C-alpha cells in the first residue's frame, strides 16, 4: 500500500499546483498576509491558528487540545491551552502527576499541540511544552523549543459517560469507529459531554524527539516519551465557546437533537453523530487513519490536501488493484513509442557525436562521481591556461547513467586533454517507468469526465491528465531522454480498442545544469558592464517617461532596454567557447521515483428503488408493450390513437412524465 508521504511529498504537491508546505516556514509564507508579525516564539501558535483558519467551515473544533500521558502504573497530566487565547481548557482530574527518570517532563507542564505538515512527518502531531508551569500562560516562562512529533497516528475512539466525563479513568474504549457509532451514537449521548479520544502511540518507537534551534537557556536538551500514551481531542458541543472564544455552531456533523430527559433542571439532548462525519472529523486533523467503519471491513483513509491545506475531507485507498507493486513486469512486450525514427528499435542506440543534431563540436565526458569530475577539472587547469573556456556544459543526473541494469549511455575511453576519460557515444532511446491497469470503478458513464478524472505523476515530469479512455486499460509509461540537453519526455501509451495509442506526453528534466563560471576575460566583463549600463540608462528613461506621463517615451525606452540586453549578450556569446550555466531544478531529484496514478471520482448514491422510481437512461424505440416497469417516453406521437385530442394530450403528458407498464 502506498504511503501518504510518498504520494504527497511537497514536491508532488507542487506538481499539482498546490502550495508546498516544506519546510514549515514555507507553510507560513503561504499565509503571508496574516503572518507578518511572526516570531520564533509564536510560530507554532500561528501555524496552529492558520491551520484552523484554513479549514474554514470544515473546522468543527477549535484548538482546544489536551494531552494525557499514561503508563501502566503512572501517569501525568498536561494541560494544553488554546493556542490563540492561551486559556486553559481544564485538566482531567484523577490523573496524578508523576515524573521519573528518564522522564524530563515536568509535572503539570504546560504546552500545546499543533499539527505538522512537512516533508519529514506528514500529518504528524507536534507538541511544545512550557519550561515551567505558569498559571497565567500569558507571560513569564517561555515555551520550550523542544518539540516532539508522531510519525504516524492510528485512531481509536473512546466514549466517556457524561455523568463521569471529568474522570479519565472511566474511559470506555471502542476499538473502531464502527463500534462507537453502533454502540453509542445511535443511542445518542449527552451533547455537552462528547469526548472522542484518539490514541495510537502504543509503540513508543513511533515517537521521536528533536531539538530545534534557539533553546531559551542555551543548553542542549533532548526530550523523549518513553511510555505509551494517549492523545485525545476534546470538544464540547454547544459549550466550546467557553474555551475557545469561538462559537461552535457547525451542526452538520450531527443529526437533529433529541430530548432525552431532564437532570438537575437541565434539559439533556442527544445529538446522534453522523457516521461519515466522524471520518471528516479525523481527517480534519490531517491524520492518516484506519478503521472498521463498515463492519468487518478495515479501511485506510487519507486526509485530503488541497492547495497545501488539509481540508477535512478524506479519501480511501484502493485496497486491491490488479497486481502487487512488486510484480510489475517489464514493458518490452508492447510496441514502443515512435516519436521519431531514432526510437524505432530498442537495440539501436542513438549516436552522440559530431554533427548528430547537437549543433556543435564537442565531446561529452561521463563522470560517475563529483570526485572524478573534480580530478579532471583540476587536471584541465594544468593543461590549458583557461580551462573554463573549454567547458561547454556540465550536467548532473539523479540516476546511474551506466549500471549493470540500466545503461542509459554507452561510453568509450579516450584521451581528452591528456587525460583518460569516458566519452559518451550513444544513449538508449527510452526506459520503462512501469505500467498499471486502471479499473472501471463504476462500470458506467461515471467512469468518464467530468465525473471521474485520471491523473498520472511521472518522475521528473510531474502530473499529467489522462483521457477518459484509459479506464479499463493498462497504461505503459516510458521515459525518453537526452543526456546532453538533460531534457526528457514521458510517453504514456495504452492499448485501446486493439490499437496502441499514445494517450499522454509530458516533458521534464532528466538532469540539471551545473553552474560553470567563466573566468576568462575582461572582454566579457566589459560586455556585461556595457549591457548593464545600457539597461540602467534605459530604465532611467523609462522611469522618467512614466513620471512625466510620456507613455510613448516609456515604450521606446523599454524597447531599447530589451535591445541593449539582447545585443550585448549576443555579442558576448559570439566570442566565447564557454557558457554560463544555470541551476536547474535539483529539488526534483528528491521527488518520488515512482509513478502515481490518482483517480478522483464521484460517489454515486442512488436509492435502492432508483430504477423503479426514476429509471435509468434507455434511449430505445419500440411499441410501448415492448417495455415494462417504470418508463419515461420522449416526444410521444399519439397520432394512431382514436381518442379525443384532449385525451391524447393527457396520454402524451403521462407517458413523458413516467408511467408503469
Amino acid at each position: 500500500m502506498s504511503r501518504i508521504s510518498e504520494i504527497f511529498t511537497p514536491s508532488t504537491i507542487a506538481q499539482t499546483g498546490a502550495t508546498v508546505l516544506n519546510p514549515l516556514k514555507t507553510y507560513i509564507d503561504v499565509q503571508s498576509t496574516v503572518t507578518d508579525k511572526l516570531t520564533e516564539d509564536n510560530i507554532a501558535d500561528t501555524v496552529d491558528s492558520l491551520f484552523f483558519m484554513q479549514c474554514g467551515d470544515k473546522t468543527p473544533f477549535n484548538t482546544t487540545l489536551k494531552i494525557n500521558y499514561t503508563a501502566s502504573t503512572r501517569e501525568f497530566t498536561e494541560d494544553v491551552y488554546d493556542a490563540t487565547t492561551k486559556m486553559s481548557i481544564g485538566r482531567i482530574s484523577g490523573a496524578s502527576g508523576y515524573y521519573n527518570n528518564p522522564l524530563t517532563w515536568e509535572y503539570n507542564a504546560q504546552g500545546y499541540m499543533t499539527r505538522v505538515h512537512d516533508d519529514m512527518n506528514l500529518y504528524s502531531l507536534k507538541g511544545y511544552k512550557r519550561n515551567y508551569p505558569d498559571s497565567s500562560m500569558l507571560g513569564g516562562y517561555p515555551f520550550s523549543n523542544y518539540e516532539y512529533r508522531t510519525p504516524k497516528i492510528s485512531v481509536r475512539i473512546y466514549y466517556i459517560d457524561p455523568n463521569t466525563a471529568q474522570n479519565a479513568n472511566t474511559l470506555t474504549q471502542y476499538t473502531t469507529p464502527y463500534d462507537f457509532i453502533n454502540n453509542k451514537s445511535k443511542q445518542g449521548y449527552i451533547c455537552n459531554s462528547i469526548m472522542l479520544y484518539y490514541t495510537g502511540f502504543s509503540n513508543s518507537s513511533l515517537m521521536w524527539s528533536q531539538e530545534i534551534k534557539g533553546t531559551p537557556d542555551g543548553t542542549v536538551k533532548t526530550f523523549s516519551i518513553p511510555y505509551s500514551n494517549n492523545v485525545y481531542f476534546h470538544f464540547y458541543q454547544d459549550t466550546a465557546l467557553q474555551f475557545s472564544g469561538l462559537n461552535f455552531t457547525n451542526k452538520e456533523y450531527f443529526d437533529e437533537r433529541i430530548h432525552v430527559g431532564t437532570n438537575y433542571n437541565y434539559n439533556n439532548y442527544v445529538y446522534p453523530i453522523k457516521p461519515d462525519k466522524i471520518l471528516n472529523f479525523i481527517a480534519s486533523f490531517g491524520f492518516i487513519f484506519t478503521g472498521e467503519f463498515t463492519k468487518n471491513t478495515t479501511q485506510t483513509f487519507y486526509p485530503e490536501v488541497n492547495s497545501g491545506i488539509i481540508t477535512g475531507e478524506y479519501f480511501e485507498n484502493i485496497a486491491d488493484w490488479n497486481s502487487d507493486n512488486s510484480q510489475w513486469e517489464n514493458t518490452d512486450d508492447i510496441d514502443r513509442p515512435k516519436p521519431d525514427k531514432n526510437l524505432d528499435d530498442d537495440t539501436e542506440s542513438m549516436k552522440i557525436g559530431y554533427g548528430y543534431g547537437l549543433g556543435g563540436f564537442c565531446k561529452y565526458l561521463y563522470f560517475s562521481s563529483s570526485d572524478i569530475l573534480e580530478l579532471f577539472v583540476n587536471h584541465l587547469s594544468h593543461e590549458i591556461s583557461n580551462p573554463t573556456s573549454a567547458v561547454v556544459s556540465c550536467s548532473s543526473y539523479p540516476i546511474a547513467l551506466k549500471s549493470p541494469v540500466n545503461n542509459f549511455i554507452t561510453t568509450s575511453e579516450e584521451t581528452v586533454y591528456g587525460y583518460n576519460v569516458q566519452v559518451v557515444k550513444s544513449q538508449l532511446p527510452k526506459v520503462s517507468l512501469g505500467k498499471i491497469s486502471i479499473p472501471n470503478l463504476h462500470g458506467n458513464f461515471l467512469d468518464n469526465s467530468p465525473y471521474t478524472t485520471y491523473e498520472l505523476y511521472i518522475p521528473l515530469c510531474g502530473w499529467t491528465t489522462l483521457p477518459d479512455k484509459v479506464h479499463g486499460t493498462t497504461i505503459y509509461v516510458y521515459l525518453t531522454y537526452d543526456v546532453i540537453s538533460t531534457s526528457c519526455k514521458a510517453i504514456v501509451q495504452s492499448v485501446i480498442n486493439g490499437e496502441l495509442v499514445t494517450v499522454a506526453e509530458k516533458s521534464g528534466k532528466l538532469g540539471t545544469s551545473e553552474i560553470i563560471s567563466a573566468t576568462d576575460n575582461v572582454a566579457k566583463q566589459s560586455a556585461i558592464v556595457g549591457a548593464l549600463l545600457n539597461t540602467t540608462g534605459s530604465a532611467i528613461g523609462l522611469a522618467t517617461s512614466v513620471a512625466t506621463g510620456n507613455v510613448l517615451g516609456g515604450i521606446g525606452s523599454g524597447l531599447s532596454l530589451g535591445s541593449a540586453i539582447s545585443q550585448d549578450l549576443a555579442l558576448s556569446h559570439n566570442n566565447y567557447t564557454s557558457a554560463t550555466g544555470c541551476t536547474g531544478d535539483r529539488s526534483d531529484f528528491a521527488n518520488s521515483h515512482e509513478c502515481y496514478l490518482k483517480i478522483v471520482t464521484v460517489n454515486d448514491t442512488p436509492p435502492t428503488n432508483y430504477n423503479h422510481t426514476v429509471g435509468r437512461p434507455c434511449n430505445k424505440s419500440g411499441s410501448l408493450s415492448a417495455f415494462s416497469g417504470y418508463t419515461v417516453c420522449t416526444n410521444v406521437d399519439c397520432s394512431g390513437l382514436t381518442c379525443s385530442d384532449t385525451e391524447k394530450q393527457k396520454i402524451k403528458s403521462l407517458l413523458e412524465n413516467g408511467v408503469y407498464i
Partner: protein
Amino acid sequence: MNAIIYTNTADPRTVNKAEYLSQISETTLTLYNSTNLLNPTFKARHKTTGNYLYVDGLGYYYILNQITDSSVCYYVCEKDVLHSNNLSGLPVTVARNEFDYNMTIADSLLPLAQDKIYYTRNFAPDISVFSNTTEYILGVTIEEVTNNE
C-alpha cells in the same frame, strides 16, 4: 348506465391496471347534468368504498376521486386514459426505463454525493531506473582537444 366498482391499488400512472383491480359491487349510475366524459359526475344510489369504476355504457374506466354525500351520492370521476385506451402498440421512444437501460448514457438525475472519492496507486518497473547517486556529463570543446594534440 351499469357500472362496476373496484378497489384500485395501482399507481395512477400504471398503464394496465387489470391485476390491481378488485371488484366490489355493481351499480347503476346516471350522468349528472352536462358533465363531460373525461371528468364526469355520476348520480348514484349508494356510497361506495371503491376508488375505481368501469362504466359499461361508455366503455371507459374512471378514477373515482370524490363522493359527495348528501341526499344523493355523486361520484366525481376522472377518466383513466391509460387504462381505457389500448396503448400497447403505440410506438414510443423510451428515454428512461426500469429494466432496459444503457449505463453508458449519462444520467443527469443520478444523485451524486458532494464528496469526491480519491484513489491513488504507485507503480514502478521491477528494477528502478533511478538511483541514489549523482552522475555527471561534462561537455568540452573539441577545438581545445585538437590544439592539445
